[in-house]
Structure formats: structure tokens, C-alpha cells
């Protein structure tokens, strides 16, 4: 058993070299609470090094905590698990940032997990390729982070969830064994084993590489915006357009207050709603999708807005315009189509009860639901913070869940036992991201 921090450092250096072991920054140490276990940040350069590190950690029952680019949201703690005081190894994957293979015939890329989504986009762009219509703001984290932590923000109407782009993963299990799930467009040879590891937040295995589906950059793109009589009408218009099989690249619905905060005071009336849409693909099809959305909005009493509204939204979405970017929303929930309006009303009612106010937009529309983002404010429009925010948000989340929404970080409750059991089998010493 390794007794001291120095012994641990020497063992780690033997695997990755002296240059790639460092003291953790103060912020990380604070997370450990009052106890100060031996802790090091290690930068492995390859999957075999990760395998050695995990085998080492397994032998010494050291905790292994994955670090990506540090953008991840703090995961919801499962319970007040007391993490025993034991050595900690922070595994920083950022040196593992290589494209291993780019198959332009099949439109498949094999990448190491330390590469960020944005860096990958920069490599793909000159070849006319892209990961998909994902919001660039969601691509700042590493591929490992994107695949390990599931948040609904990482999805697009046309290309689905980032996880749906996974054709295969390579990972190191807790005891240092390496596994590769095989790559095929689809298969019927048992469960999709990659889905065991995606979304597991580093508790079942450490991802080292992934094979992802990519796309050609679209031939054409159209932007449009419409004002509708109400938020509910706008949601109905989206449903109508999707029912007609429109496949927009991005689609967003703002309520009146949110539209005026995001797109300018003059964009619409207070009770109105704004729908912005981007369509892309072969020119004729992209135009068709644009027109399908337009006719759905006009069927619900909408009117077209000038092109500058949609263009402003698009520049901001793609990070070309930073000025006036509104604060991030206070809460997000996922709601199936039939529940979206009800969830919206429930949150507004709950806020009114707490003498607060809420504005909202909905996006990431997929067949099975969309994400509603709420910004909680004082009646004067000032954004809530601190304890007041926590209090109002807790009530609002409860109201949303009662109206049929799924909260961020929920689990399939009936599978909780099975998830815990699977974790015990794959990581019997509980070294991988314990407590997460």
C-alpha cells in the first residue's frame, strides 16, 4: 500500500514520465473537504498509459477522477456517500487529443477523448465536414466529457443527441483491462455495449477513444423568424411542421419576455412569441423545410419577421457575436410534445406564487420531446441569484415535474438497483469517480 504522496508520485511518474504528473490546483483540493489525501493530476498520453494507471489505482484502491477541459456541470450527487480518505488520481485526458483515423468514405472519425468538440470541428471544417448541427456552445468540452455526462443541451433536431453519433468506444475498465466495442452502422449481436459506458460519468470505465459519425457541410442554409400570438401557438406550429416531416437544423421558440430580452425590445409584443428556424441540406430540401415551418406558423396566426432577427440569433448561436449575450438560463427541463405548454404554464404559475417571474425558450426539438429553458427573475425583470433563486427554482422544478417534465440528471428510478449492481461488478473497488 502506498503510504505517502511522494510514493504515489513516483509510481505515477514511472507510468507517464516526470513531466506529466503535477500537484492539483487549489480548487480541486478544496473539493476533498477537510481531509487532505495524497492527490496528483496525471496527464496520460495514450490508452496503454491509462490502462497502467488504472491497474495501479486498482491495486492501491486510489480514487480515479476524470478531468476534461473543466467545462462540465457539477454532477448531481447521488446521495451523501462518504468518500473514504484515500489517494486520489485526477486523470486529465487533454494530451490524448489526436484524430486516429478519418474515414471520409464512410463519414466516420476515430478520435481520442481529450480532443474538444470545437477542436475536432476545426480539423473537420477545411475538409467540408462537421460533427453535426450541435450548438457550438455545447462543444467546448472534450469528447470524453460530451459522452460521459448526458445533458439535453448536446442535441440537435436533425442529428439527435451526441451519443447517437457514437458507433463505438474504447475504454479502460477499473482493473486496467481495455475494451473496444466494434464498429458497424447497425448490428443485432446483443445489447449496444457502448451504451453501458456513455452517460456513466466515468463511474464504469475511463473512455479513451470514440468512433463518431460525421456529416458533410450542408449545401445550403436558410434562416427565418416568425412572430406568433402566443408561446402555446408557437409550440403547436413546431409540432405541425415536424408532423409534416420538416427536418430543420435548429429551431427555437421564445416567449414574449424572453424574445425581448434576447432579440431586442422591438421584436414582438409582450404576449406574443417568436419562432426562429435554421434549415440546411440540399438546397431544394432546405428551402422546403423552411417553407413547411413558414406555412405551419401562418396556419397558427403567425407573421414573418425581418431577416435580421434570425440572423442575429444565428450569429450568437454560432459564437460569432458575443455582445449582449444573455445570462445562462436558471433551469432546464425536458418535456414530451404533449406536455410542453403545460410545463411552461406550471413553471410560470409556481413563480407567480413565489412573487417572482419567469421567461422561457424551448429548443432541441426531437420527436420525443424538447428542452425548455427558464430564466427566473424578480417581477421587475432582475435575474434571481443565490438563495432566492434556489428557493424559487426548487418550487418551479417540482411544479414542472408534476406537469410531466423530466428534470436534468434524473435516473430511471426502477433501474437504480441494477445500475449500482453493474457498477459493483465492473468496478468492485469503487475506484472510478467514487461518489459521482
Amino acid at each position, binding site marked *: 500500500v502506498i503510504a505517502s504522496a511522494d510514493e504515489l508520485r513516483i509510481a505515477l511518474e514511472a507510468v507517464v514520465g516526470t513531466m506529466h504528473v503535477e500537484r492539483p490546483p487549489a480548487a480541486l483540493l478544496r473539493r476533498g473537504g477537510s481531509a487532505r489525501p495524497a492527490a496528483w493530476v496525471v496527464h496520460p498520453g495514450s490508452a496503454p498509459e491509462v490502462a497502467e494507471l488504472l491497474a495501479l489505482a486498482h491495486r492501491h484502491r486510489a480514487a480515479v477522477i476524470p478531468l476534461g477541459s473543466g467545462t462540465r456541470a457539477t454532477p448531481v450527487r447521488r446521495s451523501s456517500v462518504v468518500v473514504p480518505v484515500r489517494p486520489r488520481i485526477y486523470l486529465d485526458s487533454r494530451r490524448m487529443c489526436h484524430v486516429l483515423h478519418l474515414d471520409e468514405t464512410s463519414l466516420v472519425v476515430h478520435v481520442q477523448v481529450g480532443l474538444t468538440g470545437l477542436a475536432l470541428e476545426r480539423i473537420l471544417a477545411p475538409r467540408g465536414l462537421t460533427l453535426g448541427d450541435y450548438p457550438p456552445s455545447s462543444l467546448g468540452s472534450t469528447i470524453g466529457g460530451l459522452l460521459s455526462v448526458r445533458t439535453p443541451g448536446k442535441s440537435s433536431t436533425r442529428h439527435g443527441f451526441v451519443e447517437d453519433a457514437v458507433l463505438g468506444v474504447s475504454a479502460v475498465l477499473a482493473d486496467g483491462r481495455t475494451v473496444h466495442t466494434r464498429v458497424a452502422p447497425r448490428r443485432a449481436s446483443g445489447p449496444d455495449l457502448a451504451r453501458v459506458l456513455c452517460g456513466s460519468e466515468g463511474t464504469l470505465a475511463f473512455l479513451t477513444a470514440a468512433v463518431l459519425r460525421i456529416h458533410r457541410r450542408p449545401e445550403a442554409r436558410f434562416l427565418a423568424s416568425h412572430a406568433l400570438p402566443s408561446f402555446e401557438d408557437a409550440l403547436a406550429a413546431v409540432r405541425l411542421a415536424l*408532423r409534416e416531416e420538416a427536418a430543420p437544423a435548429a429551431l427555437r421558440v421564445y416567449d414574449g419576455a424572453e424574445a425581448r430580452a434576447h432579440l431586442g425590445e422591438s421584436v414582438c409584443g409582450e404576449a406574443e412569441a417568436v419562432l426562429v428556424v435554421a434549415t440546411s441540406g440540399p438546397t431544394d430540401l432546405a428551402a422546403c423545410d423552411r417553407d413547411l415551418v413558414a406555412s405551419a406558423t401562418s396556419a397558427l396566426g403567425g407573421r414573418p419577421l425581418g431577416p435580421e432577427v434570425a440572423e442575429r440569433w444565428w450569429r450568437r448561436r454560432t459564437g460569432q457575436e458575443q455582445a449582449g449575450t444573455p445570462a445562462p438560463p436558471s433551469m432546464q427541463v425536458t418535456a414530451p410534445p404533449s406536455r410542453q405548454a403545460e410545463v411552461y404554464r406550471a413553471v410560470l404559475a409556481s413563480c407567480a406564487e413565489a412573487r417572482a417571474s419567469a421567461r422561457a425558450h424551448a429548443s432541441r426539438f426531437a420527436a420525443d420531446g424538447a428542452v425548455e429553458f427558464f430564466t427566473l427573475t424578480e417581477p421587475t425583470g432582475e435575474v434571481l441569484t443565490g438563495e432566492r433563486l434556489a428557493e424559487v427554482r426548487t418550487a418551479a422544478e417540482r411544479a414542472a415535474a408534476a406537469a410531466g417534465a423530466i428534470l436534468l440528471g434524473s435516473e430511471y428510478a426502477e433501474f437504480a438497483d441494477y445500475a449500482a449492481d453493474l457498477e459493483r461488478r465492473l468496478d468492485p473497488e469503487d475506484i472510478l469517480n467514487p461518489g459521482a
Partner: protein
Amino acid sequence: MARLALDAETLRRALLPIVGERRVSVRESDLVSYARDMWPRNLIGLHAGRRPGDLPHAVVWPESEREVAAIVKVARSLGAPIIPYGGGSGVCGGAVPILGGITVDLKRMNEIRSIHRDDMLVDVEAGANGERFERELNRRGCTLGHFPSSIYCSTVGGWLACRAAGQMSTKYGKIEDRVAGLSVVTGRGELVRTDGPARAHRGPGWNQLVVGSEGTLGIITSARLQVSPSPEVRILRGFEVQDLASGVEAIRRVLQRGLRPAVVRLYDELDTLINHLPIFARKSAAAASEDEELLARAFRTGPVPRAERGALPEIPPREQIAPTASGLTGRLLGLLGPSTPPARRRLAGRLRRGALSAVLARPGLVNGLAAPLAERLSRHGCRLIVGLEGSRIRTEIEARLVLGELERAGATDLGDEPGRQWLAHRYDVSYKMSPVFRAGLFVDTMEVAATWERLLDLHRAVKQAIAQHAVVMAHFSHAYPEGCSIYFTFFARATDTDQALRAYDAIWRDGMAAASRVGGTISHHHGIGLLKGPAMSAEHREAMVILRALKATMDPDGIMNPGKLGLPAAPGAAPGSAAPDPAGDLATAELAAAIPAEAGS
């Protein structure tokens, strides 16, 4: 593999309080019926009059999820294996018991619980028959878009258990792409449910872990599936492409442009010929040999359901286009080089008879004939069927783009007729097996898949592997932006049953080894069952560790469908012990040796 020493009467008594007298049976006639599915290897023996080897000890017909959970609990306490059973249309032996146990037939759980029009979701029980389910959806203006050729004789639960694909999967996706939620009775005897969009949840994606588990983790009792609005238009067209490679390239371009036709089928040279050889299309002339006549009848007859009725509405009327049969026949005859019409006909007859006697006799002759035949055929193109359906405006625009892309790739438009013919006969294949076996032949299909980069290698490797033993043809269908599946059909005749079984096993052993060797998957949509179990370690290699962990979690006592998916056969067997060798002479070690381990993925 020894049948477990379970007392049938004890089982019956334990099940009685759950389902009552009439829904449990230990009668031999019932046990024999449930000892098989449509695995061709078993049919070879059955047609020779052999009894199925392994019978279940009891058959039970539950009517509710609570009953299913109670049955699993009883089985667990008695150490009896559970074999879930749907339509019995599986072709890999997934529902064949190997140790006996309790076969749980879910067909009495066949209700459509609700259709949520706003969310385009449907809740349906696992035992629902495919065609009835689709017809019911059609009545409400929806479609699941899932049309396996077994649609008349398979169930929703069966589709989910083996990750089935329908003929229009290129637009609607495979069944796993349509799952929004599942109810499962696990091997622990507990009913657990997933619900709500998976992307909103943390932890393993349970839907995708249960789908495809073939009853080895639990019994799927009901599902929430995504449906689509019924299509307003359907457009089907036939094309001829110069050769296989240019056809594959054309499909890849279509898919990678973001276009989603519902149907894409590219037939290789022999498949093109067989499907349009005159004797298969209509009654053969008197000159046909006895063998030829048998085969022709096998391909022509059988209680084939009308595809346009029931599961599918009529194709929206389009202007009649004169059949191009004369053109096609002309082309077939043209294969044989320039000569006068009567001489051409004689040559065509000789070619046909040559091919067929080769089919029916020795594989050596097949290869000798197939090579020059294939070479000749390759000069005359491959058939490609493309279909689109959906909402009127968008589908018509998409169709124009798809057809334009195909023409740019050099495909010749053959009009509507080939598509209409395919549509009318698209469920036939499931009903042709029996007559083929009666004719003394055996036939089976192997569906593999790979990314585009490896696709032609996959075709070549698997075709070569099978061609040593049988006549083989293939079509490419189920296309994706990143790859495609290949569907091989092979048939052969053997002098006796044992020889047939040996040949059958050799075909599968060599075919699957070839698929793994070039980086394809051994199954695109039929599943693993007993048939492909020995190839699972080559398919997943080290990742089998994860599958075994999952199995131990969901089914700690190992009672759920033992021996399938290459998992251990005996209840309670330690995870990691070798998979059984169901085919007798299909040695796992031998197979493993035939497949070199690859480094990396």
C-alpha cells in the same frame, strides 16, 4: 448438453396458481411445437423426420406483466430455465430450448394499450402480432414503418428482442431506433420500466441494453414505440446500374447527401438473374428437368400473403407504365452474345439448366460455372430498387433529388414496374422456406453489415467463404450514411441429412469468420440465438466482459434463455465460462482460431 432433470409435474403445480389450469401445459404435443422456431438448421432435421432434440418441460401462456413476474420468480426458485417465445419466426434458434425449462409464450399479451397522437407514441404489449399492430396503427393514421418479411408471423417483443429491421428501415430506422420506453421482467423476477427521453437521464442507456438481449437478461413485456404519420405518397422505381460497385457508390452518395429513401435494394448479378429468370417468374416450359421444376415450384408457390393487403395500403395510383419485361428478357438473352433468336433461346435454356443442376448437385461444379456466369452477368448490370414515402410535398422534392443523384451515378431508370413487383412479393420469402425444404434443398440467409469503406471487401469475403459450399447471391439493403447491410441468400442440396447439417455448419462457420475478419458485424437484424453464439467472442472480443457483467446483474442465477448470445449455458454457471457448442461440430476453439485477433478497433 444435458436436459436438466426437472420434474414437469412439479413445474406445472408451481405455475397453476399463477395462470390456472388452461394456460399451462406439459403435454408432449405442446412441448414438441415449442421446441423449434424457424432456424433452418432445425428444419433440415425436421424435414428428414427427426424429432426436435430438446423440448421445454412446460409451456405457459401468461396474460399480464404480474403473471410474467410471478412465473420468473417460480422458475428462479426451482432453478428452471425460462425461454421467452413470441411468433416463433426467429431464424437463429433464439427460442430453442437447450436445457429444457419453461417456455413463456407472450402471444396472449397482445393489446395496444394506448396511442398518444400528440406525442406520436404507442404503448403496446410484447405479444402483439406485427401485421395486426401495423394495421391498427394505419386505422388511426399512423405507421410504425417496420415491415420485416416475417410481419405476418412475428411479434413486437420478438422484434425488440433481436433488434429486427423492416424493409423500409432506411427511412424509419430499425426497431431499436423506435424505442421510447420498455417494461421488462428481469431475471430477478422484478418488473422494471424505462420511460421518457433517454437523453434526459443519467447512467447506462437501459433501453439500448435490453433491446437485442434475446431474452437473456429478462422478458420484454411491453414497449413504448415512436410512430410516424401514415405516408401520403409512395414512389417506387427500378434502376439498372452498371455493376455492384457503382450501385454501392450511388447509394452512398444519396445517403450522405442527407436524403432518406424508405427502400434501397441493390441486387448482385446472380440475385438479379434469379429474381428475374423466366422460370421463377412464370410457369416453366415442359422442357424443364424434374429438379428444375421442383426448384421453380418452390420459388413460386406457398401460401404467400398479399403484401398490398392488410399491413399496407394500396400504392397511390400512378399512371400505368407498360411492363418492361420484354426488355429484361431481351437483356437476359443478350447475356449469351449475339445470335439468332432461336439459338439464343436454346442457349438460355442450356445456361439455366446448367446453373440449376449445379445448384442441386456438387459445390465444385457451382464454382466452375458461377465464375464465368458471374463474369458474363457483370457486363449486364445489377438491379436497384428505390422507394420513397411520406408527406406529399417533402417526399416529392426528396424523390427528385434521389432520382437525380442515381442518374448522375449512371443508373438507368426502368420505371415503376420493378418497384411494384417487389412491393407485391416482398413478404414472400418467409413462406418459401417450407417448399424449398420439401424440394430437398436447404436455404438460409446471412445478414452482415459494415461501413462503406469495408463494404465491398465484406461482400467479396463472405461470398467467397459461402461459395465453397453453396450457391450464394446477395442484395444490399438497409443503408445508412456510414454504411450498409448485405443480405446473402444461399442454397444447396445434400445427399443426406447429416451431410446437409455438416455443410450448413461449415457455411456459417466460414461466412461469419470472413465477416469478422474484414471488420463487419456478423448480424445486422436476425440476431444471434444459438446459431451465431460461437462467433460472439470474435464479434465483441474483450467487450464480452461488459455483456457478462450485464448478464450477471440482470439475471444473477442465469435462468434467462441460457446458451443464447454466446453466454454460458448452465443456470448458475460462472460468468466467463465458455459458450456451449450448439451445432455439435461447430467447435468454438476452431472458430476462434480461424479469426485472428485484431489490435485496436
